[in-house]
């Protein structure tokens, strides 16, 4: 469900432009309000929806499974550390969800990458990401699948 912006609610602060991982939230060249310039490329992370201080960004459902008339809206309350969702169905039914933004006090579990050792070339060439495998809590390391166990018919 790609996002779109209500122009009358947006104040052009740029939070969505800053946070969008796809770099598709931009400022309109005529009216200086945010706009999703490429909804097809939106991967629906809802970062902009949650980050918008004016609640000016909404999600538009695909019409094949979310008919017109429905509504999905989100409210992010930083002071309480909560995100609330309200799903309104076309027939008037409503569902409300409340989730914590984080289960840890803010700032405690942010990795300080600058304090880590600089990775060597072998680590850079490895398929493991930063903090892996420790962060995955897999004591025996990542599972490895040998080629003969791969799906039959797929050749490498």
């Amino acid at each position: 469900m790609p996002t779109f912006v209500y122009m009358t609610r947006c104040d052009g602060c740029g939070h969505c432009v800053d946070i969008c991982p796809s770099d598709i939230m931009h400022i309109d060249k005529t009216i200086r309000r945010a706009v999703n310039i490429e909804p097809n490329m939106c991967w629906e992370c809802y970062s902009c929806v949650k980050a918008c201080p004016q609640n000016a960004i909404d999600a538009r459902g695909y019409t094949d499974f979310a008919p017109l008339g429905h509504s999905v809206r989100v409210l992010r309350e930083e002071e309480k550390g909560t995100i609330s969702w309200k799903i309104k169905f076309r027939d008037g039914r409503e569902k409300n969800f409340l989730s914590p933004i984080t289960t840890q006090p803010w700032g405690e579990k942010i990795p300080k990458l600058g304090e880590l050792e600089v990775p060597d070339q072998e680590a850079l060439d490895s398929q493991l990401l930063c903090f892996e495998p420790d962060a995955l809590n897999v004591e025996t390391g990542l599972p490895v699948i040998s080629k003969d166990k791969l799906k039959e018919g797929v050749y490498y």
Partner: protein
Amino acid sequence: MISINPFSEIGTFIPSFVMQTYVVAMFLLVIGATIFDVIHKKSAKYFFNNSVKAKKSATRNVGSGEKASLAFKTATNEVLTSSEFCSTRRRLAHLLTMYGFVLFVIATAVMIFSYSAPNSMTPSIWPLMWHLGAAMLCLGGYWFWFFIRVDVAAEGNKWYRVMRADLFVLSLIAMATFALIWSYLQSSQIAIWQTLFFGLFIISSTVLFGGVLWSKFAHMFYKPAAAYQKRVTKADGSRENLPEPADLPEKFGLGIKREAPRHY
């Protein structure tokens, strides 16, 4: 310089009625273009349809007394103190330009309609207000243009990248800047430059007031309407379909405040 009425000084060359006709023409241009804009973009229709839609999902009725109180709150918060801005810097810059513009326009109108004859004695408060308004416009405007403008702060563009959205703010800054330079040159008795900057002042103010259709000048009319509608939806429970605020105590405090958008 700041205690001299620049319009009475040029009253010897330009008759008062010409200046007054210009001000009336600019006023009519703003009103006419705003009405045309509302009809052309169907913004009034959009607001009306939106309020009808909101009424359908309202959980309670908002009486006329409460509506009046909401209108009052909109006037004191969103209109007079620009409380809708989430960034303090933007809010301050907006307040500077807004009050600067108001002071400048009122002082201009008073000086042109009452004290533009060559030998008229202008009370010093009006030229003072005119210069103060222009200075506030410049301060807020340049602060916004170079540092706060979303194209610079969030999009990572250079300050000199100009596009149509800049028509309003650029013509506003240009008008105030040329007005101050013109006033300075006039008090310094530098005739040629004085005429040039007076011409630039007139061009920039004509672009500002005549370009309403293409600029965001009209936001000063429809923003209060949008703010009022937002307050009504909160009061009647429709809340623009937004969830109710979580029934939880403030847990993390301001430490969780979102970062300013400047990651370029």
